[in-house]
């Protein structure tokens, strides 16, 4: 079923390893960074909003 005869063949990508894996690596990085930024933004936002609510309840 698989096109490659071995795992090292697969990694080698017919001599284009740097180009192929370079593309996939940058794409994965972009996705990971976007998700991490969104989650940290959500956390920070919740923190600020909750402390804002507490402040207003004190007064």
């Amino acid at each position, binding site marked *: *079923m*698989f*096109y*490659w005869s071995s795992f090292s063949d*697969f990694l080698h*990508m*017919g*001599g*284009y390893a740097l*180009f*192929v894996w*370079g*593309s*996939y690596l*940058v*794409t994965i990085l*972009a*996705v990971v960074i*976007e*998700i991490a930024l*969104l989650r940290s*933004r*959500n956390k920070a*936002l*919740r923190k600020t*909003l*909750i402390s*804002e*609510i507490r402040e207003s309840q004190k007064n």
Partner: protein
Amino acid sequence: MSLLNLNWFKYAAPQRFYGLAGSLIPWFVVSGVILTIIGLVIGLGIAPTDHQQGDSYRIIFIHVPAAWMSMLIYLVMAFWAAIGLIFNARLASMLALSLAPTGAIMTFIALWTGAVWGKPTWGTWWVWDARLTSELVLLFLYFGFLSLHASIEDVRKADRSAALLAIVGVINVPIIYFSVKWWNTLHQGASVSLTKAPTMATQMLSGMLIMVFAFWMYSIAVALYRCRNLILERERHTDWVQEVL
């Protein structure tokens, strides 16, 4: 018809949409992950090599989906921005703003993978041909939309100004899409079109289309997540936000 209208207006309220998006996100994440795994196994594992380009062509499984998404997200973003502008609909404007960063990332991925594909195929990372240049303009349109929005303090004013920019910029999308037809570009013509039979092997094509759907799922999931963040931020003084926190 009345049912359709009812749902439409129901979810136009940020509060309803916040809940709806929250329950939809996991489904988009799960289907995105599954589609990515299937698409990559087919594209990187099963599909045969290309006779002309060798295995460098395997960049196609991210390049084409990212390039399609970069254009599609722009159109959807401009659509919601226009709805927000015309009907003064807050949620529509928030949706537009939620799509912009993801659209910019898709454009960046399309440009990056294109450069890395161009080097072994054309012998150069970059040329100023119509396809590449108009895609770069798309990236600057996303940056322009985001920085214009960020530069105006009143969010509704920012929504409206950015919407105008987004609408004017729509002209660039058909230019990108048809650039390979209208001008003599180094970039190859479309491998897949609605009117002609595809010129690719079945496994290559199916791997690519599955990755297109995977990128769809990803984009929808992150845009919905970002929209929920925006809703929390903008509706912070309402009772319902204070309750959901």
